[in-house]
């Protein structure tokens, strides 16, 4: 962790980069340039150390033993929850549930909140730009309940069709589930505005925040959503850990989802009573090291400052966008006015997979495919795109080095 060194026009990112051991490796004999943080970010030393230290010194099960180690492990686990509660400005720790990731968080809401509530003919509203993890759980619950899935269209520039939203928020709409930042095209959605519209109509809101957390300072109370899902590994934390934020009144009224240890108060064969929040939704031994690692990731991001990260990434986004446009035949897919540093593009006559394979040989890791957003990619009439996603450790120099590699790949393929 380091202070922010500034140069004239942008951050000198080398101090931040030094926090990420994986960035020192080479690929095919070339220095790794990691442009795939939207798939999963690299981890800073602070996260690796926190997890390593836990296993080396404090490993014990949480909330169970009276022995010292168990107490210390519980303290570390709950300190992580407290840190994350503050990180997203939830009202209390009871509103922050550890899950396996954003996908599990959304499934939890679909099954434990929506399924008991939805009636045949009710509607769940999502958008064309959702990740499959914010489509399939709703399709499943619609099949189970007879509710109907409705879709907010996406405009050619990658923004939500806001004009369509009022008509889609009907009396039958019970839930609005929307991505905060698009993992495929980078669009930052006007979530405060949409949550306000939903609230005025008594519609429950869930935001998929997986891709927002690494880029933006997220304040769930200011946004005004009912649920917010978080993935650890997209925000420089471990895989297999995430969060569900839920307003306490809603979580309290929900039945448990998974049954097992930890989530109970008393068990008899006649009747089991359930634990209070958040334990009610955390059956079984949790991913303790993961939670501690995620807490460390939040602390790391705070130490750099999310505003400073956003400023650096916006600079990268603008630079990359203008440089990519110099490549002949290249078209950027999704040019929303408010964007995070995620850029999808296609090159005329070039299949994205071929492009990804060739630039890999020069050390550049980009993602190619549908990015788990098949309906969105189809909406743009494409089978796939190439995606360059920039994280806090990427630099202008890396972008500049990418352009000739891209041109070379194009020359080989066209």
């Amino acid at each position: 962790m380091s202070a922010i060194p500034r140069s004239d026009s942008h951050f000198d990112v080398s101090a931040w980069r030094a926090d990420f051991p994986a960035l020192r490796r080479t690929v095919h004999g070339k220095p790794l340039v990691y442009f795939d943080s939207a798939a999963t970010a690299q981890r800073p030393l602070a996260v690796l150390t926190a997890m390593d230290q836990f296993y080396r010194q404090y490993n014990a099960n949480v909330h169970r033993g009276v022995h010292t180690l168990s107490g210390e492990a519980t303290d570390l686990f709950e300190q992580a929850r407290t840190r994350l509660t503050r990180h997203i400005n939830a009202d209390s720790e009871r509103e922050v549930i550890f899950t396996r990731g954003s996908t599990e968080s959304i499934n939890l809401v679909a099954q434990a909140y929506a399924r008991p509530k939805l009636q045949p003919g009710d509607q769940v509203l999502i958008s064309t730009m959702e990740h499959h993890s914010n489509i399939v759980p709703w399709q499943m619950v619609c099949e189970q309940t007879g509710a109907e899935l409705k879709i907010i269209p996406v405009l050619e520039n990658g923004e939500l069709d806001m004009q369509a939203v009022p008509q889609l928020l009907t009396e039958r709409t019970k839930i609005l589930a929307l991505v905060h930042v698009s993992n495929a095209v980078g669009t930052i959605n006007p979530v405060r505005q949409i949550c306000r519209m939903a609230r005025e109509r008594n519609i429950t809101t869930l935001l998929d925040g997986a891709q927002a957390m690494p880029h933006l300072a997220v304040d769930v109370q200011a946004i005004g959503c009912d649920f917010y899902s978080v993935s650890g590994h997209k925000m420089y934390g471990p895989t297999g850990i995430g969060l569900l934020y839920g307003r306490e009144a809603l979580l309290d009224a929900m039945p448990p989802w998974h049954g097992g240890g930890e989530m109970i108060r008393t068990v008899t064969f006649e009747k089991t009573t359930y634990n209070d929040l958040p334990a009610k939704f955390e059956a079984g031994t949790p991913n303790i090291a993961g939670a501690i690692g995620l807490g460390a990731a939040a602390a790391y991001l705070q130490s750099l400052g999310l505003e400073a990260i956003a400023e650096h990434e916006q600079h990268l986004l603008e630079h990359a966008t203008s440089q990519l446009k110099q490549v002949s035949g290249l078209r950027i897919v999704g040019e929303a006015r408010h964007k995070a540093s995620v850029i999808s593009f296609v090159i005329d006559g070039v299949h994205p997979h071929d492009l990804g394979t060739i630039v890999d040989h020069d050390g550049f890791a980009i993602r190619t495919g549908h990015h788990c957003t098949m309906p969105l990619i189809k909406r743009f009439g494409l089978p796939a795109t190439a995606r360059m996603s920039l994280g806090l450790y990427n630099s202008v120099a890396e972008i500049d080095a990418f352009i000739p590699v891209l041109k070379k790949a194009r020359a080989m393929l066209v």
Partner: protein
Amino acid sequence: MTTVIDQAQQDIVDEFAFLGDWTERYQYIIDCGKSLTDLPDEEKTETNKLHGCQSQVWLVADRDGDRLTFRAISDALIVSGLIALLLRIYSGRTRQEIASSRPWFVEQLGLKDHLSATRSNGLASMLQAIYQHAEAVSA
């Protein structure tokens, strides 16, 4: 005795030996892909589509007695290039020739990375489909 399939593999390995760095190797595969004959649209069906490939791959096997002729194409050039190599090796062979062969050229060309099930370019799926066609004929 060298079989026809082994000989076809050896020919490809020999051709690659003349190529320099990876750029030339990929350029060669890309050029093979560019010259591969496309399938007619009516054969690009869901049935003929191979799964396990991130790019789209369609494979058709025509049989004449024990002999199998393969035709295939992908929407990605590198994959089409790999298909072209596979067709040189396996198309027009008998099912016995295919079933008793081993795809050792993959390792020799340094394409082994492409074979692992977790790699998504589909070389493994294509090989599996070819060997399955050879077995299906015998059933």
